[in-house]
């Protein structure tokens, strides 16, 4: 589904991603873990070109998105993204947050988008917040809204950039529950996270990144039970 070949990204002289090649298959739940500064967020942000790769190609469903001639707006309509800091639009109600993109991109008519928004809000149990503004919501509620805002575009893949890192501990669960549900429905997901429990339970593959490289990857059971790489062992011993 997403094919990454020889991806490189550097900011000035600082190399963040060094020759990464990876393939994400439909229905996979890829969990990316690693210490901070390892390049895992940059890797994720390259997938929908929020960061422009320095070199290498990324192909999404046969379209080379790193090609300057590709219509990145069209491609992004099929790739949902959830951010660490939610990035809800504070000047709009929740309803408008959800319906803006489907209507403006021509995916839905306004009434259709409104219905979709209501269905999605019911699903995350936040229907009563439809006409509230983001400032009135808790962090966990904001992140659940951010997830359904991305889902309203009916994406084929969802990218999560540390979706629970900015949350109070007691709110992490409600967001992870929504993500688990999404995973069960078969959504293709790429998740950068520090939630090892989530990685173990939901992930179909775990990537460990450090220093701009994917040092180790495996299905989660084997990955956590029997890490091979020294750096992975050290990391896991600190976080588990």
């Amino acid at each position, binding site marked *: 589904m997403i094919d990454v070949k020889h991806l490189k990204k550097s900011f000035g002289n600082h190399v963040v991603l060094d020759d990464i090649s990876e393939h994400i298959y439909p229905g996979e739940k890829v969990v990316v873990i690693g210490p901070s500064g390892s390049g895992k967020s940059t890797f994720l942000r390259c997938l929908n070109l929020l960061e422009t790769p320095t070199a290498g190609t990324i192909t999404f469903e046969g379209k080379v998105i790193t090609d300057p001639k590709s219509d990145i707006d069209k491609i992004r309509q099929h790739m949902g993204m959830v951010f660490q800091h939610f990035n809800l639009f504070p000047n*709009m109600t929740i309803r408008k947050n959800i319906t803006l993109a489907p209507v403006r991109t021509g995916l839905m008519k306004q009434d259709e988008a409104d219905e979709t928004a209501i269905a999605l809000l019911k699903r995350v149990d936040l229907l009563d917040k439809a006409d509230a503004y983001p400032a009135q919501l808790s962090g966990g509620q904001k992140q659940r809204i951010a997830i359904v805002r991305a889902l309203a575009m009916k994406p084929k893949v969802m990218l999560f950039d540390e979706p629970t890192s900015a949350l109070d501990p007691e709110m992490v669960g409600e967001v992870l529950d929504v993500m688990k549900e999404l995973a069960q429905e078969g959504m293709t997901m790429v998740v950068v996270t520090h939630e090892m429990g989530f990685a173990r339970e939901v992930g179909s593959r775990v990537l460990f990144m450090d220093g701009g490289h994917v040092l180790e990857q495996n299905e989660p059971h084997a990955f956590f039970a029997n890490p091979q790489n020294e750096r992975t062992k050290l990391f896991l011993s600190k976080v588990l």
Partner: protein
Amino acid sequence: MNLAQLYETLTAAGNLSGWQEMYVNFYKAWFLNDRWIQYFKGLLTTIEVTVIALIIGVALGVVVAVIRTAHDQQRLGRRNPVLGIINALCKIYVTIIRGTPMMVQLLIMGFVIFKSSRNFTLVGALSLGINSGAYVAEIIRGGLMSLDPGQMEAGRSLGLGYFDTMRFIVIPQAFKAILPSLGNEFITLLKDTSLISVIGGKEIVYFAQAIITKTYEAMYPYIIVAIMYLIMVLIFTWLQGKLERRLRESDRR
């Protein structure tokens, strides 16, 4: 005894006390020959010039700010050369306007560029608008740049284009953030309209000076002018406060 009779009696009597002289001078500056009408004629021109300059200033400011920001936010390696040239022109415009005094710009516009024009008021409004545009552009650019880049990213990640994201997400939020500085700029603009009297624009100061040449007494006309400006600024500040409170609606918790 009404005001006019009092004035007649006092000027006929001569040898006035301090208070009486104050009254006579004020009467000459305001009531005599219905001079107050002239102040209001000037006030009307002031408002007209402010509105025209405001429209020009905001239009220019928005265009320049959007060009400058769009240029600075281009993806690396995908720089548009046409945008580069327009951006350079915008930079020159802002530099020249901010680097020279308002008064000098007015004199150049009035006596060099439009020296054959008799419509001093319109030339004045145009100069003020062009001047204001440069400051408004920098204020708007500051607002656009100060917004959390995550907002732009969130809009783009949903598949919205650059201009849609600007229009629905970035600009409304930036507008709220820059409203105080924008209000400040508008107040400056309103007060700067007094400068167009130097190229013959017939606003309040122009009429006040005309009255002074007849009465040989400067204090009251100028104080009247000052009070009129103060009242206008107070009204504007009040309106701005109302607008700010309305825009804060989405901040309520």
